[in-house]
């Protein structure tokens, strides 16, 4: 028996040393086997995933469209203001077929991605600087946190006056929207690193840079990821606001501009189509980029309670 420690040891004292070492090893192996972290419940099958997380939003969506159809039939608003689901579906399909939908998505998404990467670089550097310098944190911290709650659309008039109707104006607004979230996310992630980890780095004899690179930054990753996710959401919102206002032929056709066309033509079905497209991009980025990234980071650290 693996647990019968005293007897096995007492016997071993008189016995040969090899026998004792062997017994100790088997006790260790038995303990390890018994002590292993409890197995997680098995991953749910495709049917359960479908019933559990795909079906509910689909049912809710169907209900929403049903209510919409009822409102349309009841003529709560005149048809030009509230078109029915079928009309919107038709406009949606036309927009997809004539390529405007993909053009607009591509224009906005590439703009958003570029703006986000720019914000990532600036926000990360700002976050690191704020972490490293107590003075900078005290000086800049309140403004950065304040900027987080300032709707970045407020910067659009200023950006247009500085940069006219140009991409530079759009990126200015995106940066001012995303940088504070990313910097604050990194900073709070680094502040939440248990001091014990830093002591480990010191005890092992890592240099300051080594401790940042191998201990602090990886430890801060979950908080940083949260900041990135919020930063992207803010960048995307700011981009839509900027595109909606800075309408100019030389800026190309983004989703915000598509939305503006719908408003100027008083074509409500195009307005709704644009909103749906903006929403779809947001959901796709969340499901395809941030959710898997976060899951893999948390899983690796054993931080997820359920899979």
């Amino acid at each position, binding site marked *: 028996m693996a*647990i019968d*420690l*005293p007897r096995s*040891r*007492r016997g071993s*004292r008189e016995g040969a040393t090899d026998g*004792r070492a062997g017994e*100790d*090893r088997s*006790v*260790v*192996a038995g*303990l*390890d086997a018994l*002590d*292993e*972290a409890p197995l997680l419940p098995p991953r749910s099958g495709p049917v359960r995933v479908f019933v559990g997380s795909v079906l509910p939003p689909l049912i809710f969506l169907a209900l929403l469209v049903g209510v919409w159809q009822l409102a349309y039939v009841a003529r709560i608003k005149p048809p030009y203001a509230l078109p029915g689901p079928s009309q919107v579906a038709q406009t949606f399909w036309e927009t997809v077929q004539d390529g405007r939908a993909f053009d607009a998505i591509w224009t906005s998404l590439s703009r958003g991605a570029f703006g986000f990467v720019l914000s990532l670089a600036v926000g990360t550097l700002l976050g690191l600087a704020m972490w490293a310098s107590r003075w900078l944190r005290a000086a800049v911290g309140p403004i950065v946190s304040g900027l987080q709650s300032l709707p970045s659309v407020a910067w659009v008039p200023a950006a247009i006056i500085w940069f006219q109707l140009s991409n530079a104006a759009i990126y200015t607004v995106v940066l001012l929207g995303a940088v504070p979230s990313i910097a604050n996310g990194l900073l709070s992630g680094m502040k939440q690193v248990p001091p*014990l*980890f830093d*002591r*480990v780095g*010191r*005890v*092992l*004899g*890592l240099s300051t840079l*080594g401790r940042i690179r*191998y*201990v602090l930054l*990886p*430890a801060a*990753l979950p908080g940083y990821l949260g900041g990135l996710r919020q930063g992207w959401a803010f960048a995307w919102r700011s981009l839509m606001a900027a595109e909606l206002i800075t309408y100019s032929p030389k800026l190309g056709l983004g989703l915000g501009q598509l939305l503006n066309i719908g408003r100027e033509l008083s074509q409500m079905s195009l307005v709704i189509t644009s909103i749906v497209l903006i929403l779809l991009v947001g959901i796709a980025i969340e499901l395809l980029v941030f959710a898997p990234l976060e899951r893999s*980071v948390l899983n*690796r*650290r*054993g*931080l997820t309670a359920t899979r």
Partner: protein
Amino acid sequence: MTAHALTVDSATAPDATAAPAVSVQGVSQVFTRGGPPVLQGVDLTVAPGEFVCLLGASGCGKSTLLNLIAGLVSPTAGRIEVSVERPALMFQEPALLPWLTASGNVELALRARGVARAARKAEAERLLEVVNLAGQGGKRVHELSGGMRQRVALARALAQDSSVLLMDEPFAALDAITRDVLHQELTRVWAEQKLSVVFVTHNVREAARLGQRVVLMGSRPGRIVREWRVDIPQPRTIEAPDVSALAGRITRELHKEISRHGH
């Protein structure tokens, strides 16, 4: 100072003539200016290859003394000399980095020591074998039990390749069976690698089970009250009569020391 000359174990007897592994001379420590001293006039010498247990009630400053020896804090007064540049240190918590595997944690210590990338993997595997974790290097920290984590931490401490190992109540959070096993592992590794160990604990039996010398610390201010030479040869067991008898004597002394503060 009382000697318990039961049997002299010449194989593990510390070499008193060589330069000490750790030398603490007249060390005092004050954390707040003008505040009460946490340590006062502490003298402690650890010979190369010696296993010393620092025993005391919680709050007596034994962890502070260990941090001073580790060089994480500088003493307010006194001198501390350690024979190696950087002693290895184990905490009460395994303190493994959760984004790395067991092997990755050991490899980080090797990287800090400047071991070439190519050699790290094999060396980490060898060290995990030393603590009976052969083939478990690929596991994530959260997949390991408490005892296994503490063994990975021991492997990481060994990866520092320091002849001085400082341990701060490393087994306090473990269950009795696992602790028994780790006591065996530690004494085996200590003898094999000829380490000098300073082992902080508040568990009298653990101190009597492990140490060649048990040093009792008193509280407020933290200072050394008494010490015992333990000549019971290893391998000992925690329930062996001579170990229990010694633990009884030390406990009485500890109780006397603690009750001085009750008035």
